């Protein structure tokens, strides 16, 4: 008897999505998978969602280790909860068309911080899945993948613990969740961040943390009151997000160890590469090589924790041609998050950071976090719906006289532009025959590299100086122009200076586009 039949005979509700053929199969049940399943359903695209987990939430079922997120939701934001503009102030809720499904995180805040606790985030995601009617076949682990030619066309076959799933399109939202540790002698004496124990068990211990990114400093911050000494090391100097003016670097929440180190308070922040770990009487010896002068140094510790990040659990996808890159083994992707080397395989959630976009001034997208990748998921599904499922996406006309103010409103309020700077753009096409049409949000690289009618695209961008400024791109024929606008210290891009600047750019475009 199958588990489904058994459930039915027990009177329990049957589990959804038994093995079989579906147009689309989504793997995962974290925020990335929930967002794409929601979008697929709203387009009426039949799909199965399978997950090895027992419930929704993905990494938020366990992490962050110290149970408090790094992503804000502002309860008293200057925008109404169900509005699009509120998304700028809410990094944690998933996106929905229905007002009652928007800004859900607000329902699950404990009032102590604008950074929700981990359990509150898990409750937010669970509520979204329940209220949006997202079904998932939990406890169904994807194990292997192959391609199969059939009379109806090529199919991907996903082998799972419960049988085989066939599909034209597979969307993997499995996170960047496989613990990674460097290969140095004695690394087996270290535990990974993923296996960190309860904080009090480190009482009085000398702790060595490999890695100086957020996970390392999260542990250091949380263990300051427990450990007798904490040393963190990696080859490059540590950077903070305050210095980089971006999400690159250690977040402000975790800077206390920097102060302790500067004041000689039992924290060492070292720039050195790890050469090996060995057992010595009374503990572990950690051998390092200093980055500044290549001289050896060593220290003793009771425990070593490897906070060196995670890789993508892509299983055998590389063997069917999925190219990966970087230490996290992210799959190389197109601007619509399709594998760059295996068409038909898409990615959602944090893995979408593998579609890096322009990375202008070295600043990455925010696709590694919910507030960035939730938009990628929405755009991915709209693209798939339009290109493979004959969906018609509405592109409403914009009165020519409203174009300038529309673009400036987007530069001031569009959450997609705030969260995915120089990565997503608000696009208006300028076909001479039909007049301006709102093409909605698109990947900026698609706008710059794709063909199409004359068009304009508004983005928000940063250059690492701390300034945030709008940029208007103009596509005419095969030429693209970039028009950076001055930053406004209050981030209001709708004032007379901007109206004049954008008006002058539009004026040159077409006599059918009034400037002001």
């Amino acid at each position, binding site marked *: 008897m199958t588990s489904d039949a058994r459930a039915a005979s027990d009177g329990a509700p049957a589990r959804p999505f038994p093995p079989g053929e579906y147009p689309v199969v989504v793997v995962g049940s974290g925020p990335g998978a929930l967002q794409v399943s929601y979008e697929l359903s709203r387009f009426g695209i039949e799909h199965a969602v399978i997950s090895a987990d027992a419930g929704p939430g993905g990494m938020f079922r366990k992490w962050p280790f110290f149970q408090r997120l790094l992503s804000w939701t502002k309860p008293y934001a200057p925008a109404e909860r169900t509005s699009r503009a509120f998304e700028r102030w809410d990094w944690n809720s998933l996106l929905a068309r229905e007002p009652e499904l928007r800004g859900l995180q607000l329902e699950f805040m404990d009032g102590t911080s604008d950074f929700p606790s981990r359990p509150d985030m898990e409750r937010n995601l669970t509520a979204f899945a329940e209220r949006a009617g997202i079904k998932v076949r939990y406890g169904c682990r994807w194990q292997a993948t192959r391609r199969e030619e059939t009379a109806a066309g090529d199919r991907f076959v996903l082998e799972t613990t419960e049988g085989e799933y066939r599909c034209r399109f597979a969307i993997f939202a499995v996170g960047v969740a496989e613990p990674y540790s*460097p*290969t140095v002698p004695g690394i087996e004496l270290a535990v990974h961040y993923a296996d960190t124990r309860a904080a009090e068990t480190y009482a009085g211990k000398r702790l060595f943390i490999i890695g100086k990114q957020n996970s390392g400093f999260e542990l250091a911050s949380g263990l300051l009151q427990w450990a007798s000494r904490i040393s963190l090391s*990696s*080859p*490059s100097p540590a950077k903070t997000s305050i210095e980089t003016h971006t999400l690159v670097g250690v977040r402000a929440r975790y800077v206390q160890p920097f102060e302790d180190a500067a004041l000689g308070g039992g924290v060492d922040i070292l720039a050195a*590469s790890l050469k090996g770990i060995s057992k010595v009487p009374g503990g572990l010896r950690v051998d390092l*090589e200093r*980055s500044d002068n*290549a001289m050896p140094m060593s220290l003793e510790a009771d425990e070593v924790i490897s906070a060196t990040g995670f890789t993508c659990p892509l299983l055998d996808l590389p063997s069917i041609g999925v*190219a*990966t*890159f*970087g*230490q*996290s*083994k992210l799959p*190389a992707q*197109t601007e619509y998050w399709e594998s*760059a*080397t295996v068409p038909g395989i898409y990615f959602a959630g944090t893995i979408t950071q593998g579609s*890096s976009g*322009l*990375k*202008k*001034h*070295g*600043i990455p997208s925010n696709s590694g976090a919910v507030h960035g990748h939730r938009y990628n998921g929405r755009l991915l599904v709209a693209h798939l719906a339009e290109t493979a499922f004959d969906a018609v996406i509405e592109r409403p006309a914009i009165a020519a006289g409203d174009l300038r103010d529309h673009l400036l409103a987007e530069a001031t309020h569009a959450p997609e532009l705030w969260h995915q700077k*120089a990565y997503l753009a608000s696009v208006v096409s300028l076909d001479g025959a039909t007049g301006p049409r709102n093409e909605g949000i698109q990947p900026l*690289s698609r706008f*710059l*590299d794709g063909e199409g009618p004359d068009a304009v695209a508004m983005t928000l*961008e940063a*250059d*690492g100086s701390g300034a945030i400024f709008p940029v208007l791109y103009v596509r005419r024929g*095969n030429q*693209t*122009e*970039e028009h*950076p606008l001055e930053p406004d210290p209050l981030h209001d891009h709708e004032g007379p200076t901007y109206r004049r600047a954008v008006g002058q750019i539009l004026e040159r475009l077409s006599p059918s586009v009034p400037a002001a």
Partner: protein
Amino acid sequence: MATREEIADAIAGMAMFADLARPQLLGVASQFEEAFFPKGARILRQGLTGSGFFVILDGEADVVADGSKRATLARGDFFGEVSVLLGEPPIADIVATRPLRCIVLPGPGLEAFLVDHPRVTYRMLQAMARRLRGANPRR
């Protein structure tokens, strides 16, 4: 390709990094990021700001200025430095003609990198001098 060690191995045989010992190669590998571009992708865009400095690990790319192909780049070649050094937008597109793996240093980090690695700077100047000579052949 992925880890710091693998990137260090990959760049060890390149002229630009020929004077660096293993620990320095590892240091370089930890400062650059790896990037992958499918065939047809534009890596640099003529006239657009905010680019970086790229070194090709594997693959091939064309230099295309005003729609005309000017050169082909392959493993060990670098690009983007002129734009970053002058603080101006690139004067050509760089387009992958085969899948391209690069290591990338964001533009704002190039000055400190070159100052910290004078032997790399010297090798880079040699390569740029060769390009200059190639662009101005003796008549």
